[in-house]
């Protein structure tokens, strides 16, 4: 028998041994989701018949001799990934009726690997947010404390995995949207190198930074899934044509002598004391495993947030122009003319945060402010990327907190928009520089999870996963689960 919090690796063994079928696993996952989701609001679309049919197919394939570690394992997709025939909304009113005629490459690849998708996860609208409160479908609750946010924008994915609805959920990360919710929900989330995973069929927010990745219980699971997700895609010009190593192969390697850089700017006044202490203790674990701790500096860290909040909205302002009420998506009632159609469809179809970012982006790209904002931000982006690259010549990996705080309370009126943007302070650098980064559970503060972030060199996912796995061998923070007994009754 398996419980809801099993890893993919252990489920694969159970499936392989014939102790459980994919059908049973998927039925359990659907049942648990149906029970818990009314409180969590992590899942916003279910595909029960399709999932059960796919599970049966996986069982049949296994009976016919097929054997892959992902075959028959259930998963949830962030609702940013297009799923053929299944509503894909990006958690926006704008796309509440949008049913794509194609699968995103990530969806197709995981399907081809035998995984069974049974639903779509809630998220911040168009991935714009760090709390999952901007969703048109309402906020997601953190399974560790239902009064708190799960983080964002992949908050539904993080909450789903943390609550044991599925052993895996896909996420996307533009400024920390995999790592921050993974940290706040106590799971493991990997943002690969920009270009490692295809963006085709993934609804664009900021195209130069958007990257899909796995969100699971362990680094070992993330490695398994990345093996299937990564690789060249002729449908995405920015997807690198670089061979995909076996990310599971090197997990057991020792990290003795590994050079770990700790940027002093990551332990600044913005960082919550409890989080700081927890991450410092986790770094000690790495040291105990033989890693060499080195103090490093990323002096432009403080510029990251403002740089990001110029570039990302600029790209988004263009990416979201296609939602105009003309061909698909939300259209206002009886428009009087073309201008009215555009104005009201977009005013009514987009939420407040999305509109704010479209306006910021439209402003920073305008002829009068292009040089002052967009160009300047591009220059600072290059500077930040160079700082990371230069530090990564000296150390193997950069380590620090994933987020400045633990999960904060829902609808916290005291948190300003800029406070919210500061949530991304430590994660944004990896996006601006295009580097891979992973968040692993590192402890609890007041009963709430804390994440440690590891940032590696371009296409250095194997090493990140190796370090994260070695950390998880020595610790059991990733095995902690929230108490949901009140909900399961």
């Amino acid at each position, binding site marked *: 028998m398996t419980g809801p919090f099993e890893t993919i690796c252990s489920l694969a063994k159970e499936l392989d041994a014939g102790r459980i079928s994919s059908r049973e696993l998927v039925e359990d996952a659907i049942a648990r989701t149906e029970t818990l989701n009314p409180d969590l609001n992590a899942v916003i679309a279910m595909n029960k018949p399709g999932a059960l049919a796919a599970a049966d197919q996986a069982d049949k394939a296994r009976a016919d001799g097929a054997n892959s570690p992902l075959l028959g394992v259930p998963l949830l997709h962030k609702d940013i*990934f*297009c799923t053929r025939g299944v509503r*894909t909304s*990006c958690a926006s009113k704008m*796309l509440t009726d*949008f049913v*794509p*005629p*194609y699968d*995103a490459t990530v969806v197709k690849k995981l399907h081809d690997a035998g995984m069974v998708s049974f639903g779509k996860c809630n998220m911040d609208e168009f991935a714009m947010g760090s709390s999952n409160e901007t969703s048109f479908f309402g906020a997601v609750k953190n399974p560790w404390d239902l009064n708190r946010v799960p983080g964002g924008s992949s908050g539904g994915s993080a909450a789903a995995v943390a609550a044991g609805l599925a052993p895996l959920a896909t996420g996307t990360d533009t400024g920390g949207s995999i790592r921050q919710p993974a940290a706040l929900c106590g799971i493991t989330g990997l943002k690969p190198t920009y270009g490692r995973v295809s*963006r*085709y*069929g*993934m*609804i*664009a927010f*900021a*195209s*130069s930074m958007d990257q899909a990745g796995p969100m699971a219980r362990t680094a070992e699971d993330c490695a398994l899934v990345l093996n299937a997700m990564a690789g060249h895609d*002729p*449908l*995405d*010009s*920015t997807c690198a044509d670089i061979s995909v190593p076996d990310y599971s192969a090197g997990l057991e390697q020792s990290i003795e002598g590994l050079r770990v850089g700790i940027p002093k700017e990551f332990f600044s006044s913005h960082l919550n004391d409890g989080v700081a202490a927890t991450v410092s203790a986790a770094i000690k674990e790495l040291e105990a495993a033989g890693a060499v701790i080195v103090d490093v500096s990323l002096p432009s860290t403080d510029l990251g947030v403002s740089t990001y909040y110029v570039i990302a909205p*600029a*790209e988004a*302002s*263009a990416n*979201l*122009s*296609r939602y*105009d009420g*003309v*061909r*698909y998506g939300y259209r206002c009632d009886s428009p009087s003319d*073309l201008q009215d159609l*555009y104005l009201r469809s977009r005013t009514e179809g987009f939420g407040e945060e999305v509109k704010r970012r479209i306006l910021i982006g*439209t402003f920073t*790209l*305008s*002829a009068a402010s*292009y040089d002052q904002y*967009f160009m300047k931000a591009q220059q600072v982006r290059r500077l930040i990327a160079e700082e990371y690259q230069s530090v990564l010549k000296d150390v193997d990996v950069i380590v620090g907190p994933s987020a400045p705080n633990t999960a904060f309370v829902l609808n916290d009126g005291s948190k300003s928009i800029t406070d919210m943007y500061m949530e991304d302070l430590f994660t944004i650098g990896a996006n601006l520089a295009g580097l891979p980064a992973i968040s692993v559970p590192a402890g609890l503060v007041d009963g709430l999870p804390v994440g440690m972030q590891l940032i590696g060199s371009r296409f250095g996912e194997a090493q990140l996963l190796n370090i994260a796995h070695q950390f998880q061998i020595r610790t059991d923070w990733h095995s902690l689960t929230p108490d949901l007994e009140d909900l399961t009754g």
Partner: protein
Amino acid sequence: MKWEKVMGLEVHLQLSTHSKIFSSSATAFGADANTQTNPLDMALPGTLPVLNHAAVSQAVVFGLGVGAEIGKVSRFDRKNYFYPDLPKGYQISQFFEPIVKEGVFEVPLEDGSIFPVRILRAHLEEDAGKSVHDAIPGHTGIDLNRAGTPLLEVVTEPDFRTAEQVVAYLKALHALVTYLGISDGNMSEGSMRCDVNLSLRLEGETEYGTRTELKNINSFRFIERAIHVEAERQQDLLESGQGVVQETRLFDPDNDETRSMRSKEVANDYRYFPDPDLLPIVIDDETIERIRDALPELPAVKRGRYTTELGLSQYDANLLTQDRATAEFFEACCAASNNPKATANWMLGDLSAAVNKEGLAIGGGKVTPEGLGSLISRIDDGTLSSKMAKTVFEGLWAGEPDVDRIIEDRGLKQVSDSGALETIVDELIANNPAQVDQYRAADDGKQKKLIGFFVGQAMKASKGQANPQRLNQLLKQKLG
């Protein structure tokens, strides 16, 4: 006061790729609405552009064809504006780093001289779809078949002063792109669209006046007319002390006027920025040289060769190189006739007249270059008189392929054989002693008239097939 027109051109050429510039949809003209679209063309969420490299090669071919510098690293940018026929809400274009940079394009004018036009740049971009106003009553439909069709926008410096120069440039550009095989240049189908930026200034002035942009004029005739009426309109404004407003205007051929489309005072800020979905286009020297080596002979080179090597007039050379099909017809015809001058005369004479009457291109009729060539060689070898040649040409025009067969079937062969002609002449002299005596007694002037009788009789005897030159020679010899 004498006003001078100053004009610069922006020409959009539709490149002749089979699929769109960023999607695999077909680009054929005239298909049913929205049948040549896929999720990318409709800008469905999550779709991404993938560059069609054929469009890049064709842009490089064009750049080399106008002797321009090729951008080693060029980029795509997004040009942002809302319009129902623009599905993404932005057009992918090249703003900051175009693929073709400065060059000079030599344009042949009517008088045989060369007018150099400075090319400022040429950049790749995608076409928009189109609004359809009459298909659904009370509604505007959108047809996205054209959306994503690859365009090359060719921008010149403001080098034009007359409408004739503009038309000559467009004709030369049309010739060039059809030679290069990178566009069919079909103006009526929108494969070649022209915007004219026009301003006036007093002659001798060096500053430019305020310009207007005349959009999408789709025939050579309309361009000339549009320039004329817009220049007159601007002149009236300037002479009455009113200023010209910088704006886009549309030529209305029915009313012979230009009309304001939209004022640039409330101009769109297109918010150009580099498109993060596409990688820079990097073209190395090796690729450029490979493309250069594969270029066909360009019109300018052909013109030079026709005048110097083939001895044609500049005028004829210009006409024969106006498009690739005409030049290829000419060259194939020459190969069969071995007489370039006569070939030029026949093509620009009888053949042009015949095809023009039917509204066809030079090769559009049934006359093949080989047919016309062998017709010419049959004139040159004395088989055909020029009168007979016209009859043979009629046969070719009607679709009979073989010149010798036509000659045979209609009994058109000239008798040039000395033996056969001699027999006729000898008989004639023997049967007409009075006329022979009269001829022999006459002076030179009278002889010229009297010989006509013998020629006429001999022609009659040969059933019109005697070679008149040979006949004349023989008669003079035997009578004299």
